[in-house]
């Protein structure tokens, strides 16, 4: 059986690369599909519920869910693909073009046109995220903007108005200052040291860490440096955000999410997952609002898409399943089970997502659909992981206050230029 699978895999692979840009032949008799996703137990439940729905819709198809722990996902999928036992449907995120640039994914433009599915209409700006070299590879599946979590009690104590989408950098900074109380070890804000946070600030200021068209780095542009300076000042001039040193003094594995739950930071910008975590904390009185804006509105989002590897034996079948899974009906379990923000905009605006049964607390989930239009996505370059490492390396001293914005940006720019080969 292994030999047969390997031969079929090779054949499918050869077909995919010879007809560049086309959909490989589909073996329509092949009706068993493997779908790989990452995550934990909650993710498994949500995906399985969706696959059960898909099985009802396509009784002939046998779909197997393979859940891989997040930290091993890329290596595991890499091994599966290179040993020709790759999945038929695969979850990808920022790493999409690792595969697309190496011709490991089926371009789906033709299939989308046949199905009459308009990604940007159905999913908003994130519909254009999963493209490479003019071709589309992924259908958005989950997509939640980064939002601002805030501790209502701390706001009330300090007499500060709750955050809103109207906040600009000045409003935000003023609030953060008022909410900082060194005597209580309390900080106004969780910080911006993580890429989705400071990338957002750069984009809000009109800069781009990566050129949206080519992926070329531009982290030392005046706009970007100004945004970095603002970030730096939050820590070292205004001291409204805990540095890494402050966090490590709070406890092991402590970060902004944990500090927010303990009431040590009053505001924190992160993804949807903190809703469930915060709701489980007794006595934490909190809510969410859209992220503030700068000269422009821009906010990072956390999402993933479903793609078809070239080694899939029945790409048409895979696409049918993906089309269903990303439809309103197919994504409903994401909302019902509180797993994440479904990418489908219609579902994001429906009560299934906004007023779910799983959440007792009264949380303004409307912040997610309200943020959907502000979402900016950095170009998903194939060198994504290397870029992350270069960022960590070059910015280590910056976040500790040992290097200034311009020097850091110039240094990082040099490192990124070495790694990233911009596309045409």
């Amino acid at each position, binding site marked *: 059986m292994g030999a047969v699978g390997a031969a079929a895999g090779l054949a499918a692979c050869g077909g995919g690369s010879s007809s560049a840009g086309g959909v490989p032949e589909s073996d329509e008799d092949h009706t068993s599909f493997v779908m790989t996703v990452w995550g934990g137990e909650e993710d498994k439940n949500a995906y399985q519920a969706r696959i059960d729905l898909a099985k009802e819709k396509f009784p002939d198809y046998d779909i197997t869910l393979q859940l891989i722990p997040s930290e091993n996902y*890329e290596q595991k999928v890499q091994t599966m693909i290179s040993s020709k036992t790759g999945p038929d449907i695969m979850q990808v995120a920022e790493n999409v073009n*690792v595969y697309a640039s*190496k011709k*490991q994914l089926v371009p789906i433009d033709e299939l989308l046109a046949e199905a009459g599915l308009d990604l940007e209409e159905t999913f908003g700006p994130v519909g254009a995220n999963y493209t490479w070299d003019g071709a589309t590879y992924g259908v958005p599946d989950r997509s939640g903007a980064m939002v601002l979590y805030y501790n209502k009690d701390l706001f009330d104590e300090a007499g500060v108005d709750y955050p809103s989408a109207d906040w600009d950098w000045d409003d935000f900074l003023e609030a953060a200052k008022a909410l900082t109380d060194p005597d209580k070890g309390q900080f106004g804000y969780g910080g911006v040291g993580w890429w989705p946070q400071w990338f957002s600030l750069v984009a809000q200021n009109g800069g781009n860490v990566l050129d949206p068209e080519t992926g070329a780095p531009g982290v030392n542009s005046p706009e970007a440096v100004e945004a970095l300076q603002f970030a730096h000042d939050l820590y070292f001039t205004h001291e409204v955000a805990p540095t890494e*040193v402050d966090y*490590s003094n709070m406890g092991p594995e402590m970060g902004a999410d944990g500090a927010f739950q303990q009431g040590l930071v009053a505001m924190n910008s992160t993804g949807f997952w903190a809703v469930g975590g915060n709701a489980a904390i007794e006595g934490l009185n909190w809510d969410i609002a859209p992220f503030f804006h700068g000269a422009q509105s821009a906010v990072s989002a956390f999402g993933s898409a479903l793609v078809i590897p070239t080694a899939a034996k029945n790409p048409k079948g895979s696409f049918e399943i993906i089309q269903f899974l990303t439809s309103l009906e197919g994504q409903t379990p994401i909302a019902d089970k509180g797993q994440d923000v479904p990418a489908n905009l219609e579902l994001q605006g429906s009560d299934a997502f906004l007023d779910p049964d799983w959440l007792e607390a009264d949380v303004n989930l409307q912040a997610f659909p309200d943020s959907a239009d502000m979402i900016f996505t950095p170009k998903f370059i194939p060198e994504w992981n290397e870029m992350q490492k270069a960022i960590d390396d*070059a910015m280590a001293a910056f976040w500790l206050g040992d290097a200034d914005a311009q020097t850091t940006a110039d240094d990082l720019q040099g490192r990124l230029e070495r790694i990233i080969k911009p596309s045409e």
Partner: protein
Amino acid sequence: MTSTALEPPAVGEPAPRRRQATRQKLTAHRRKEALTFYLFISPWVIGFVVFLLGPMLFSIYLSFTEWDSFTAPVWVGLDNYITLLTDDPIFMKVMGNTAYYSLISVPLGMVVSLFIANLLNKKVRFRKLFRTLVYLPHLIPIVAVALIFQMVFAPEAGPLNQALALIGIDGPNWLMDASWVKPALILMSLWQAGGGTILLLAGMNGIPKELYEAAEIDGASGFRQFWSVTFPQLTPVIFFNLIMGIIGSFQVFAQVFILTGGGPDNASQMAVPMLFDEAFRFYHMGYGSAIAWILFVVIMAFTALAFATSGRWVFYESEVRQ
């Protein structure tokens, strides 16, 4: 190792030479014995060839290619090696870090484990309890150890810096300071020195009591006894610890990966975490393989160096020096 120590001490007598065996005709019995030998060794030979030798040869080949693990490898000759040795912004730093870590943590670990072993060899109360306690850290998974040390090394709240503060020293930000992160990793490695201690204790038990009695009659002090009896008798164990220490420390991985991720700015990045990143996170299999082979050569060189000098200080009882 310990079995040689159990033999009676050679006193002046030349050791019997046993390697005079001339070529003998294989008798039927011997042939059968040989067959049994190959039968029993075959699982390991096959395992070695299939799971070790095969991948090793493949990785030599890969080190001369550029391979993203998806598309076919592209032959690039010595390019990977040339880039690593002349044009990689971090490789030299990483090898330097690895050598720094290894060359300090191994000798230090050996001194500490010898010191502890010597203490635990004394007839003290609760000796068994102490021996257990010393070995205990060795049994804790390295992931858990890393998490514990994350707390220990915390800048202000950490017990280490609080202890330093008591004696008026303002401790550094261990894991976030480029010049302190390697000493921090070395300190952490010392916590697990108990593994070497156990071997040394076993070796100490094997030292004949007569030697100490003779030394005592000659009026040797405790220190002199340690230096002239215990230490020479232990050198085979110490040599073993040295070789294993060199090999293990050059391949340090989990501590770095969990505790620092190689940061800040590669100040604690080591060879194996770097090759892991290149091969499995950045999809440069060929480049990663080249790092692996350079590391292999370096480890071999240090091990060979240790063996070359061992004749001067390692003392086996069964052999006699003129």
